[in-house]
């Protein structure tokens, strides 16, 4: 009998269905799937070879269609191996699916798509086949990895305890000259005890030290050598010498050569294993910032489906879904607010501690927290496209990139281990040839000490661990650093070039000054001017209208509106004739405006655009509009000065306007009247002066300059193009991020240097001392046990030092600064 659902042959005892006596079912699932739609399975079952055809067909489709995307689904309810086929073919029937592969053990399906397919459709297909599915959440840095590390940590600890417990008696019986109660050297009793020690320390090597040997062998096959190679050689050399001395005493004519060093094997193994365990634990913390980011993701979303609110997993939210958010809830995906309003805490993404007010039309970011009110928003970016998902990807990529300094270290690392082996051999030769008696014992011990003390791991870990922490720390503060390159270069920056519009200033004009003449009332003049401008679409007009609204002035409908391009506008307001424009326009319309000349001159000097207002032929006032400086620009530029940086402003504005802004915010140098296409050239000129330049901008026209600069910093509020070309993105869109980014870079690179200097100094001092260079002068010889301890803790020290960076804070939040 065959199971029509999965095609499996089933025994006569299998469940059957009335009306289909020729079919049996392997499981309740297949049974239910059949009941749901018998036609689907019967047709397939009655056409032998259908399955093969289908396979061929899908193979053809694979060849012709190009996969553009793939989705991972977690599938529940698969009991038999044959369920796999059912799920695969159910998924394969969905339009847009190129290929579907199910992994029964993992209960996962990988679906390749040649177009955008809603996860909902795939889930529906799986559930129609009698199973349930949901998209797999991207947590590749999450649980499984953590579980793997934890397992390794626990196994290393077990190995450590075994080696440690063995070490104690081994140390005791190794020194009959020192410890009381140990049988005499050369006695049968001691030889028997030493024989036992040979066996237990062999067990220590085989069990506790297994990873040294497997690691060394794996590396050896690849013609490379690593820390494992050195430790494996060291502990096995000590063990072999001791065992030979014990078993074949005849090899060594002198009695004092018949010493044993089983303690070296046991103790070094114990220490190095403990060091590895501690290092794994410390390294898990270096990626904590990334884990925190991944943990920010909301799990569910409340969306409107068919007119009512339903709670769904965040992975199945689609673009254009209307999402409902209540106070205290996490916003699930990115979108645009359509109704309601609230204050939203965006600190987790932008680093900005003060909640942002959101009203209709404002964008909201997924993973931020809604504080006060309820609102609905339309989802614009979901899944892998959300800002958080992109930040996570960026941080992950950056953490996987290399800093230039590491490339040098890598070159050294490639030669390091074989070089240490050579030093070990040379040490042996030197002691054997020139050393005091018993030369062989000294030669073996010093060679072993050299092998054991060298720590390539400390060198290798020095840069990447600091980088991981530093880049993660940046993300926590709203600073996305794209690569190790950018992070390293940023600390050398001595000149910061700021684009004016949109970077230093808000990028849109606002009402700044209002001067009245002939005893007119300020608000009245503004109300008239704004009413006249209310029909205008000119940005300057809009600024005046916005200024009037900000003072809660009532605007009146304008009649007989007329605009004279380049001169001004006129209109009838409440039967009064209002003119607004330049001096020439006033003269044309018969408004004596000579008294305003001085004010106009002053405002122009301040870089503002000023207009004269005349009411019924009388000079009423002067209104000025200007692109205003962002609230925090002055403080941010002061912080850059505090860091000892030269601040340059670059703008297309005329010299006068540019200088006015420059004075207000306190930049050192102004590059005015620069055409957008020349910004990159200006950056190049600064570089030619020998400066390391950070360029900060937000627009498409800044992209070439951002790319030209040593470090390009893009404002997160700006265009995607700018962010693409930037090395650093300041999510918050505030200039304070620049100083924070540079401070962070300095702190991180300082940390890297500490690590590298420490690791180099450790190895360059440790290895010669281990080789015994101090012996001829001071009689100092390092014990291999001490060497093992030093080696084990040098890499832990490097990682712990990198972890100190986790306490780093920008100077604005002075506290525990490192």
């Amino acid at each position, binding site marked *: 009998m065959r199971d029509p659902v999965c095609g499996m042959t089933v025994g006569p005892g299998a469940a059957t269905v009335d009306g289909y006596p020729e079919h049996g079912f392997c499981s309740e699932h297949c049974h239910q799937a059949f009941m749901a739609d018998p036609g689907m399975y019967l047709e397939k079952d009655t056409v032998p070879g259908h399955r093969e055809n289908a396979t061929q067909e899908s193979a053809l489709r694979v*060849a012709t269609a190009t996969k553009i995307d793939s989705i991972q689904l977690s599938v529940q309810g698969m009991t038999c191996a044959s369920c796999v086929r059912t799920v695969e073919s159910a998924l394969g029937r969905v339009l847009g699916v190129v290929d579907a592969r199910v992994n029964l053990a993992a209960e996962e399906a990988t679906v390749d798509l040649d177009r955008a397919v809603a996860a909902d459709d795939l889930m529906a297909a799986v559930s129609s086949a009698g199973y349930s599915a949901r998209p797999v959440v991207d947590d590749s840095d999450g649980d499984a*990895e953590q579980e793997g590390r934890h397992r390794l940590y626990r196994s290393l600890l077990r190995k450590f305890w075994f080696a440690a417990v063995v070490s104690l008696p081994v140390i005791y019986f190794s020194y009959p000259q020192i410890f009381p109660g140990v049988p005499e050297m050369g006695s049968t009793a001691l030889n028997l005890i030493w024989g036992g020690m040979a066996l237990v320390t062999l067990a220590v090597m085989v069990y506790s030290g297994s990873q040294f040997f497997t690691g060394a062998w794996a590396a050896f096959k690849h013609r*490379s050598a690593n820390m494992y190679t050195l430790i494996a050689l060291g502990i096995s050399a000590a063990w072999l010498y001791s065992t030979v001395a014990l078993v074949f005493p005849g090899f060594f004519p002198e009695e004092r050569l018949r010493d044993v060093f089983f303690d070296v094997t046991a103790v070094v193994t114990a220490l190095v294993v403990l060091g590895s365990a501690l290092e794994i634990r410390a390294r898990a913390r270096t990626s904590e910032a990334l884990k925190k980011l991944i943990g920010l993701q909301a799990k569910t979303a409340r969306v409107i489906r068919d007119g009512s609110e339903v709670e769904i997993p965040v992975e199945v939210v689609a673009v254009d879904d209307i999402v409902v958010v209540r106070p205290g809830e996490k916003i699930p995906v990115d979108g645009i607010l359509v109704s309601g309003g609230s204050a939203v805490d965006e600190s987790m993404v932008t680093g900005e501690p003060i909640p942002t007010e959101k009203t209709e039309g404002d964008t909201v970011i997924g993973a931020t927290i809604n504080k006060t009110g309820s609102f609905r928003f339309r989802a614009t970016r979901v899944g892998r496209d959300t800002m958080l998902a992109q930040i996570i990807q960026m941080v*992950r990529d950056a*953490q996987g990139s290399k800093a230039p300094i*590491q490339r040098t270290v890598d070159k050294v690392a490639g030669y390091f281990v074989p070089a240490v*082996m*050579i030093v070990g051999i040379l040490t042996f030769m030197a002691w054997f040839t020139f050393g005091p008696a018993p030369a062989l014992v000294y030669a073996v011990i010093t060679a072993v000490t050299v092998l054991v003390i060298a720590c390539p791991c400390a060198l290798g870990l020095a840069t990447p661990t600091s980088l991981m922490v530093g880049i993660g720390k940046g993300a926590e503060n709203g600073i996305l650093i794209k690569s190790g390159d950018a992070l390293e270069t940023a600390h050398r920056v001595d000149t910061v070039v700021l684009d004016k519009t949109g970077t230093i200033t808000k990028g849109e004009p606002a009402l700044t000054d209002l001067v009245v003449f002939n005893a007119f009332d300020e608000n009245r003049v503004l109300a008239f001017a704004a009413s006249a401008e209310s029909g205008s679409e000119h940005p300057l007009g809009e600024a005046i209208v916005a200024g009037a609204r900000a003072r809660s002035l009532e605007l009146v409908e304008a009649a007989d509106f007329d605009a004279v391009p380049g001169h001004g506008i006129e209109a009838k307001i409440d039967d009064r004739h209002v003119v607004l424009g330049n001096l020439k326009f006033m003269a044309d319309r018969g408004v004596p405006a000579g008294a305003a000349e001085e004010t106009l001159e002053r405002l122009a000097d301040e870089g503002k655009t000023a207009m004269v207002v005349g009411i019924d032929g009388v000079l009423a006032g002067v209104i000025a509009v200007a692109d205003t400086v962002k609230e925090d620009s002055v403080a941010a530029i002061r912080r850059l000065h505090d860091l000892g940086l030269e601040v340059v402003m670059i703008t297309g504005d005329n010299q006068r306007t540019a200088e006015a802004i420059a004075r207000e915010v306190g930049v050192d140098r102004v590059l005015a009247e620069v055409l957008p296409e020349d910004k990159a050239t200006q950056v190049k000129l600064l570089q030619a002066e020998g400066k390391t330049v950070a360029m900060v901008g937000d627009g498409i026209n800044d992209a070439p300059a951002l790319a030209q600069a040593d470090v390009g910093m893009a404002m997160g509020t700006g265009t995607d193009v700018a962010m693409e070309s930037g090395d650093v993105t300041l999510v918050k869109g505030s200039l304070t991020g620049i100083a924070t980014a540079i401070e962070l870079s300095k702190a991180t690179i300082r940390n890297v240097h500490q690590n590298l200097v420490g690791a180099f100094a450790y190895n360059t001092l440790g290895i010669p001392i281990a080789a015994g260079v101090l012996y001829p002068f001071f009689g100092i010889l390092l014990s291999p046990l001490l060497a093992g301890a030093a080696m084990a803790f040098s890499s832990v020290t490097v990682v712990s030092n990198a972890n100190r960076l986790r306490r780093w804070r920008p100077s604005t939040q002075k506290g525990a600064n490192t």
Partner: protein
Amino acid sequence: MSVVVANLVGLALIGLIVWYFWLSKPQGSLAGVGAGGTQEAFILVKGGYSPDTIRVEAGKPVKLVFNRQEADPCSEKVVFDAFGVSADLPEGENVPIEFTPSEPGEYEFACQMGMLRGKIVVS
């Protein structure tokens, strides 16, 4: 006498180390060509990359599938510095890395600490 022998053996060992780790160049394996002209290779990650030298042709897309068969955190990331590509390698999972080398030459890939190394030889 024994001193002379010991020193000769020592020198021979040094020579062997220099030759084995630095001078000898393994041939490496040629990437197979899969559907659509993609040059594909499967790389096992366990104490090293097997194979650790992959020969490919320039201008054609390359797909390398890494599978890490160990819990040792040293190998948890693979970095292609020259192509600006990196990937996390969860234990036991196939992780594809795709890129198209345009210029002939030798490109290294390594773990994050630079301890495990391999290279792509583009001809």
